[in-house]
């Protein structure tokens, strides 16, 4: 059994095991066990990767290729480069943290963990697959459990939010599928005697006519970017996050939304480079609108989760923005940004969940002065906030600086202006983050009943600290990570520039 397939198999085994678990205690233990194994494997994967990479300079390594539907030349084809590796690690960390955070889920615990792990299976599979079809399969597997997770365990207008989210994302994947066919049926262009293929690396060898690329790039790009909350297709995210249970928000904002950026990078831009170049300006404008617009939207929100959701729109807009900048540094930044946003937003949702679980409100104006009552949560909240607004020493700073410096390497005014626009978002970010932190954590205690809220429990602490550690590590010692990522960006660079 090869090292990568395990990432899909272990979750499946866990799900089966969960099938036999009874009650909250067993289910959470089983789920935790399975995902800890997953986490261990992913940590191990880093070292395995580095070891292998030293001797092996293929684009993808640990490649494993099994023919699945030979008539369509569909393969179960997996392999990783640094980008996938870091994404996998991120996923594993957040899933484990999510399980800790939802340690006390009361209603249908077994089903909850099953859906959660099915979702993560999809994500892991998505990150390891090199075959468009396999990738697409895992993509939809990752999306569909959200419906149940939000619908059953959510709060507020959960049914509508779940429906909206699911339909918008599945609609996006439908659009995506058209794009995939467009790629597939031109995948042997320019290769005499080449067979149609879904294999990304194979398709990359073909030179698809530019007209075709221009035609299908929007499909693929939008198909993925909706998941990355591209303006104006982001509206599923605020309501969805607001209604979702904590762990799900964490997983969704932390990991699932990253599929968007990853897919754009790995499929849309890698396979349709010319189309990407021709469309980049248009989508770049959308992305930068999203960056500023999301931040502005976040200022006005009352509901903590809405604030965070719009913040995610802004920060993921930055990812797409950086990707469309066609610059090594910016891409590097985009990937680090994905990581950092994943961890930070997960922390935020976890914290919000804790606050909500205790005070039963997420309305900023009703909360206040919780720092005194919940010192740990308060402290972590402040730290997260500062990290989120790009304080040096945390991952967010590294990511943003890479993006800004990289984007600014363009000599034309258009990109410059957009870059400066994007930079200006750091101010707005500071505004809403401080507003939120200042209001709910500092100031006088808003409600005397909060005076004796329960302190943070051990599993909450573990969950938060797990997430905080990588944030600080990336923030203080960025060089290792960015070096690791950089040489995986090379092939994209060769292809696009």
């Amino acid at each position, binding site marked *: 059994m090869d090292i990568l397939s395990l990432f899909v198999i272990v979750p499946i085994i866990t799900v089966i095991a969960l099938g036999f678990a009874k009650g909250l205690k067993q289910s959470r233990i089983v789920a935790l066990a399975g995902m800890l194994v997953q986490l261990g494997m992913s940590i191990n994967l880093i070292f395995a990767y580095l070891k292998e990479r030293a001797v092996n300079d293929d684009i993808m390594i640990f490649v494993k290729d099994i023919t699945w539907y030979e008539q369509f030349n569909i393969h179960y084809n997996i392999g990783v480069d640094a980008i996938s590796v870091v994404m996998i690690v991120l996923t594993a960390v957040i899933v484990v943290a999510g399980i800790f955070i939802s340690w006390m889920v009361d209603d249908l615990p077994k089903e909850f963990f099953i859906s959660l792990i099915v979702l993560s299976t999809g994500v892991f599979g998505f990150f390891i697959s090199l075959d468009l079809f396999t990738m697409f399969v895992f993509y939809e597997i990752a999306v569909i459990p959200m419906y149940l997770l939000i619908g059953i365990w959510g709060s507020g207008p959960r049914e509508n939010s779940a429906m909206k989210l699911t339909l918008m994302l599945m609609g996006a994947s439908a659009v995506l599928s058209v794009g995939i066919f467009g790629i597939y049926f031109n995948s042997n262009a320019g290769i005499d005697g080449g067979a149609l293929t879904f294999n990304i690396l194979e398709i990359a060898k073909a030179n698809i006519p530019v007209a075709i690329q221009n035609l299908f790039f929007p499909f693929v790009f939008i198909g993925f970017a909706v998941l990355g909350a591209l303006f104006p297709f982001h509206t599923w995210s605020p309501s969805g996050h607001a209604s979702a249970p904590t762990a799900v928000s964490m997983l969704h904002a932390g990991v699932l939304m990253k599929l968007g950026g990853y897919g754009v990078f790995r499929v849309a831009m890698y396979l349709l480079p010319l189309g990407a170049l021709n469309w980049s300006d248009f989508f770049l404008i959308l992305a930068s609108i999203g960056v500023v617009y999301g931040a502005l*939207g976040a200022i*006005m929100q009352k509901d903590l989760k809405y604030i965070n959701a719009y913040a995610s729109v802004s920060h993921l807009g930055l990812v797409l923005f950086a990707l469309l900048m066609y610059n090594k*540094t910016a891409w590097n930044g985009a990937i680090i940004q994905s990581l950092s946003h994943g961890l930070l937003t997960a922390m935020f949702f976890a914290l919000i969940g804790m606050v909500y679980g205790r005070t039963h409100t997420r309305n900023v104006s009703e909360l206040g002065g919780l720092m005194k009552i919940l010192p740990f949560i308060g402290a972590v909240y402040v730290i997260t906030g500062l990290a989120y*607004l790009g304080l*040096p020493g945390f991952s967010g*700073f590294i990511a943003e600086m890479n993006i*800004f410096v990289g984007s600014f390497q363009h000599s034309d005014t258009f990109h410059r202006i957009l870059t400066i626009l994007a930079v200006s978002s750091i101010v707005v970010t500071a505004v809403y983050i401080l507003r939120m932190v200042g209001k709910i954590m*500092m100031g*006088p205690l808003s409600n005397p009943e909060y005076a004796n809220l329960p302190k943070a429990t051990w599993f909450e602490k573990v969950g938060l600290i797990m997430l905080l550690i990588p944030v600080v590590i990336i923030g203080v010692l960025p*060089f290792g990570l960015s070096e690791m990522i950089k040489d995986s960006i090379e092939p994209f660079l060769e292809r696009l520039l």
Partner: protein
Amino acid sequence: MDFSYTILIPLIPLALFVILGIFSKKIPASISGWMGSLGLGVTFVLSYYTAYQYYLNGKVNGIYQTFVYKINWMNFTDKLHIDMGVLIDPISVMMLVVVSTISFMVHLYSRGYMKGDDGYTRFFAYLALFSFSMFGLVLATNLFQIYIFWELVGVSSFLLIGYYYTKPSAVSAAKKAFIVTRFADFGFLVGILIIGYYTGTWDFQELNAVDHETGSLVLNWASTSFMGLSVITWALILVFMGGAGKSAMLPFHIWLPDAMEGPTPVSALIHAATMVVAGVYLVARLFPMYYFVEDGFALQIVAYVGAISSLFAAIIALTQHDIKRVLAFSTMSQIGYMILALGVSKYEGHEGLGFMASMFHLFTHAMFKALLFLGAGSVIHAIHSNYLQDMGGLRKYMPITHITFLIAALSISGVPFFAGFFSKDEILAAAYENNMLIYISSVFVAGLTAFYMFRLYFGIFWGKEKKYEHTPHESPMSMTIPMIFLAFMSIAGGYIHFSKYVTADHMPFEAHLNYYLAAIASTVGIIGIILAYVFYKKENNLSERFSHAFGVFYKWTYNKFYFDEIYLFVTKKIIFGLVATPAAWFDKNVVDASMIGIGNVTESFSEKIKGMQSGKFQDYAMGFISGGVVIAIVVFYLWIN
């Protein structure tokens, strides 16, 4: 010679911060206080040792060398990268001395001042964090490192201002400070980006390298110009925007007065002596660039901003009642001095008087302003009020405070033989040589300074006693000792021959007092003192009469020329009201609505067409046959042509 050990200077506070921060619950107050002071004591010693070493034998044939120890921290592009390290040159060493001194003193002082406060340990953790960031800032080897620590300094100031986080005013002050400076840093960052792109480096040595033959920067860049100015000039202006933000220059000064919500030692450390002069330091750091790029156009702007700010602040300071706010404005005004001094300075030799003067004033000002704050702190400690109205006749209760405060006041007012006198005189000289207008305003400011300082002094320690709920008492040793030390410094500091140590081109020169200017300055100062004496020594209504006479002007001054209101208007009305709210509305009613709309349209359409299924099978049959017929027609149509 080897200065690598200086890396310890930032690292010790960092270690302190980590320990205190993580175990803030475990460590008892007494221990943490001692730990903090001890750690800073070590850095204090180290810094002085460094200074001694450097200034004594850091010269090679008459030029102060620059020592750099750095590691590569992160690579952006193959050219652009961030290094982390220490850079030892005259100004950084001088800053080391200042920062370590004040920080150490404040640590000692706080042990007394903060006694009994829950979160004592947290306080010292924050202080340590600040010291770490500040040291990192002054030792920065490149523009990006300075930016990083710039942000860290900002955040520690945020934490310390918001130290009493249950006080809404404190929280809002902290937010204000952070956001305003953050806004300024936006300019700073863009400036950094531009410099990085055009020069391909952020390293100070490369940026500042001066070719002495041609008298211009070695560095060359694609001299693209933007709106009539070269991009680098723009970059420098933007960078100065950041500096202005931290140093509370116009129009970013509004956060400074509110920052006084923080504990007084913090005000002394951060908002008087060290952090607020970061802007000055930044300009000084890049001085060659400022000076040489386009014949110092950017420098001109710097000069005027400084001058205007100093005048503006001094005027406002006349009318404030909160003693800490008065001090805050005076700080702002003094920093304006330094900035303008830099602005009017030149590079070579004695020409660079302004640079030297600015640094000199930075040094002395740090001492006496810190002292003033500590004094004010001990007063507040004694009577639990910030307001001048509640004070008076305290001299007999707290003699040490009284004396030290007086010394500081004299020093800042530029009375001869006190530290401030010398540094201010140099500044005025520099201004006189270069820009008459600025010179005149500066002299005027000197007078105002003397006046409001002594307004404070008389108001606090003389005048008639107020009702105190308990009789005021002198502060404990832990607080007075630092004050005494600083008092000593704010006299002795003046006798250091700065021009021998700190100059723009690292070459010592002989600066001597310009008696004629000095005379003018000191007379103006003394006039100011006398006026203050007349107005405030005894209870009288002169001041009221005066303020009535100046009616409107007084009102404007008292309200700080309505700057806060303007900002409030801009943020609340324009940003929130005219941008963010519409954005939110748009999001809800256009973007989201359209998404939902698609769904609703489908639903309603399916409701409309349900009549097709009328339940009458004959209609179905009609559908059947007509469907066939229609298909036939279409096909024949399609296929006949």
